[in-house]
């Protein structure tokens, strides 16, 4: 066991900066909306601050034990089963057509957010165990497929195709890093794409979103509304932005400006300077995360670190690509910045684990 080092201060400051910045932007984006829904401008900001405090505690906690202790069969299987159970519980909770949350009274928890790092943890350990037989169908691929597939299916049923697809994508990338035969990976990717298209066409609203993505100007007030509004926000901001709090697009033009479209609000209020800095910080996260993973003392740490880094950066890139009209809108939050307690806490927890890994580098 290598000696414990000081944690990566740059990597530590990234989520702290992003989430504090997120609180500011959430307040700006949601004050009017919050007033409208709850009679107080502070509703969303308050909940986000509470989640930030809790998430920070989780992060510190995750930094302060040897991450290799997570490689316990009971923990791995237990958390995987546990999260699957929670996902099913969410599906069984009769609260409208979207069954994404489990209400804990004071706050609603989104098990699909937790599923991402748990699946990564499981895969990192599992794929390390199968290092020599990575291309073995019976020993490796089918079990991994079952684990990933069942979790993704439960999330898809919520329905949240975006998160399900993101989970499959990150799992695929982990398999690739673990040394999977590129042919199998490409075949799987092709199969997944076909499956995605089939699923898209099963749900009418998804077809609409896709069509909107392909031809956004066809219907400026209908399905293309979201992308159109998002682009108007970015465009209004220009280089310098209209100043913090001065944005107008958040006044019911942007759908859910404090969650999925927070980047559009940043674009309008802080301009290209603001959006570029956020993008740069995600680039920084990629660099420090990969650096930490590469310096991990073991292959499990490497895979876990890469997985968590990819999870955060890929999801960030997907969100930014979506709101900029480069990808179909699927409903993924911008890690650390978007409103959402589960996402924030899970993100901070993940970085906590990454920092944990970084402390074991040389």
């Amino acid at each position, binding site marked *: 066991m290598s000696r414990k080092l000081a944690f990566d201060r740059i990597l530590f400051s990234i989520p702290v900066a992003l989430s504090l910045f997120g609180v500011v932007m959430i307040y700006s984006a949601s004050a009017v909306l919050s007033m409208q829904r709850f009679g107080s401008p502070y509703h969303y900001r308050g909940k986000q601050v509470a989640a930030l405090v809790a998430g920070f505690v989780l992060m510190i906690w995750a930094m302060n034990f040897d991450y290799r202790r997570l490689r316990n069969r009971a923990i791995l299987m237990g958390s995987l089963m546990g999260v699957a159970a929670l996902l099913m519980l969410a599906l069984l909770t009769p609260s409208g057509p979207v069954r994404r949350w489990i209400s804990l009274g004071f706050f609603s928890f989104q098990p699909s957010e937790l599923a991402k790092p748990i699946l990564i943890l499981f895969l990192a350990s599992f794929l390390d165990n199968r290092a020599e037989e990575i291309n073995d169908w019976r020993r490796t691929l089918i079990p991994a497929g079952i684990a990933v597939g069942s979790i993704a299916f439960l999330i898809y049923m919520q329905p949240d195709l975006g998160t399900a697809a993101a989970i499959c994508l990150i799992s695929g990338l982990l398999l690739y890093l673990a040394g999977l035969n590129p042919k199998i990976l490409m075949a799987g990717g092709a199969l997944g794409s076909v499956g995605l298209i089939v699923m898209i066409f099963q749900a009418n609203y998804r077809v609409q979103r896709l069509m909107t993505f392909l031809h956004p100007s066809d219907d400026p007030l209908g399905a293309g509304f979201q992308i159109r509004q998002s682009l108007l926000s970015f*465009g209004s901001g220009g280089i310098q932005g209209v100043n913090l709090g001065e944005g107008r697009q958040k006044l019911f033009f942007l759908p859910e400006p404090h969650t999925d479209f927070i980047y559009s609000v940043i674009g309008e209020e802080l301009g290209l300077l603001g959006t570029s800095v956020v993008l740069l910080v995600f680039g920084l996260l990629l660099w420090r995360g990969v650096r930490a993973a590469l310096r991990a003392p*073991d292959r499990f740490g490497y895979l876990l670190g890469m997985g968590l880094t990819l999870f955060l950066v890929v999801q960030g890139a997907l969100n930014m690509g979506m709101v900029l009209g480069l990808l179909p809108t699927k409903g993924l939050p911008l890690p650390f910045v978007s409103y959402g307690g589960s996402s924030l806490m899970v993100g901070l927890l993940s970085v906590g684990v990454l920092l944990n890994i970084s402390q074991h580098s040389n």
Partner: protein
Amino acid sequence: MWQRGSVPARVTTLVISLGCALAAIQLRLVQIQILRSPGLKVAARSQQETVVTLDPKRGPIYDRNGRELALSVDVDSVYADPSEITDPTLAARKLSAVLGVRFEDLRGRLKSNRRFAWVERKITPAQRKAVEKQRIKGVYFVRESKRFYPKGALASHVLGYAGVDNQGLDGIEYSQEAEVRGKAGYLIALRDGRGHRALGKSERLPTSGKAVVLSVDEVIQHLTERELENTVLEHQARGGTAIVMRPDTGEILALANRPTFDPNAYADYPEAARQNRAIGTIYEPGSTFKIVTAGAALEEKKVSPSTVIYCEHGSIQIGRFTIKEDRLPFDYLSVAEIVEKSSNVGSIKLATMMPASVFYKHITDFGFGQTTGIDLPGEVKGILRPPAQWSGLSHASLAIGQEVGVTPLQSISAMAAVAHDGILRRPWVVAGLVGEDGSLTRPARSADPGRRILSSSTASALTAILEKVVTAGTGKAAAIPGYTVAGKTGTAQKIDESGRYARGRYVASFAGFVPSRNPALAIIVVVDEPHGGFHGGEIAAPAFARIALPALQYLGVMPEDGGVVLNRNTEIQAALKGFESMRTLPRGPFTARPGTAEQPAHFVPLALNEVRQRSARQSEETAEMPDLSGRSLREANFVMAQMGLICKIGGQGPVVGNQDPPPGAEVTAGSACQLVLVEERQ
């Protein structure tokens, strides 16, 4: 595969791929936030902001004594935000039933993708109530200014009319559009994504138009209209015109036409009724033109008034044509008698004493063949061919007022020049423009001294001849007890479509001035196609007298002989009969002012200063904005109207929830405010 410290190729690949993805996002950001930013900014603003145009209040039009002839009142208009209307067909059916707008048109407008569509402009309070009762989402009201002519058809051809967008379309409303309209203001309201309006700040307040003070006198206008009406009715005429002008200044005191129209509902009248015949139609002046002929001959010193001319015993040969007298044949007549008795042969002989070019020059000096330049739109030049285009008959025809087309205004201007010592003044109706701040502009026209077209002695000689026309000649019916009238009758056959004289269709006219030696008024009456007679002397001359007498009394012009005692009050009451709006007459005009030889002082000064003070008072007055929250729209509108505030209404609901400016703020009349309606009392 994996070794600590080394960088696996797959990690490199993956990191490079992800780096490319992030770079693509950066490029996209540059594209959207720099390259496409200007266009997107415009598009965003257009959905976020509603520019509400604040219509300016059109300036009022006053008569010379400051009485209102045209003013602007606030009325409701209905508009819709089609994006908020869920069922355009149903909404269109409901609204069409209530407002009488064509269902198909309305449905088309309500189905559009735009965020604004007029439903109906300028509705009545009852219609508004009915629309409110329908409770259709997305239908709103806005206060608009509507032109109102309190005296109806009075002076309608001078005033003209303004359209639904308050744009001047004819008359003074048109010619003074730039001054009267005012400057529009705008209010930029912020809007949110659900179409709700947030309060915006007013960027520019509208500037009210200037008030126009006319030279027209409401009382004289009224009695002119009345007598013209009676004359036209009595003779079942096709139409008619009467103009009352002040010879020494050129100002028009009254101008009336028949048929006429009510500018409050101008669209209901045919084009012919709206036409200002006084300046827009031409007729052959006939005998009236003999003044021009005689004046030219006198001015050229070819003859003196007493020169005797042989009148060929009733007919004269011009080339192949023979021209006869209208009635009796004459042998020897003096120049004065030629005009008095309206001898055709004598006039032709006078005209032919001059070369064509000289005669033509005098005709144009009198103002014929060109516009008078009055400040009203639609004036025509008339018909006057230059000598180069004359036929062998033209010189003779012109001498007796044929082959020439003139407007009634040209005729009365020429007559007024004789009255005003031979000086032709340009006629005008706009005495002054008064700004909201009380500033006064007098049009240059009113200060134009005019030009001399006849020597003093010629003018005086013609006046003597014209006096004789009334005392002993064809115009006896124009005589007024106590005053000396000078004037000339005119009777001309109309020309039909084929260019021939139309049998039995005449234009009868009388133009004259009074008192002849110190003229206060020059008046022309033209009657188009009268029945039961056609001579100017019997049709138009009596109307002249019926207009002139009460006008002189109203103006306090003392009878010249001093012997005729008039019960002024009774006469004036008679003159004003049926003129309800005049119950409170100002005292000024009743004070008799004896005129002097140099300057007739029959006229009270124009009420320009009074109007100025009134305007200045209005613009300086500030008031405190009342608290309107919780009040009904009706109540709020009433309060706003009393304070002269321009009100924009947003939101929907029975009571006012929000207002801008806030209660207690200082507001001035004419400024804008906005009220937001809500569902419940707060």
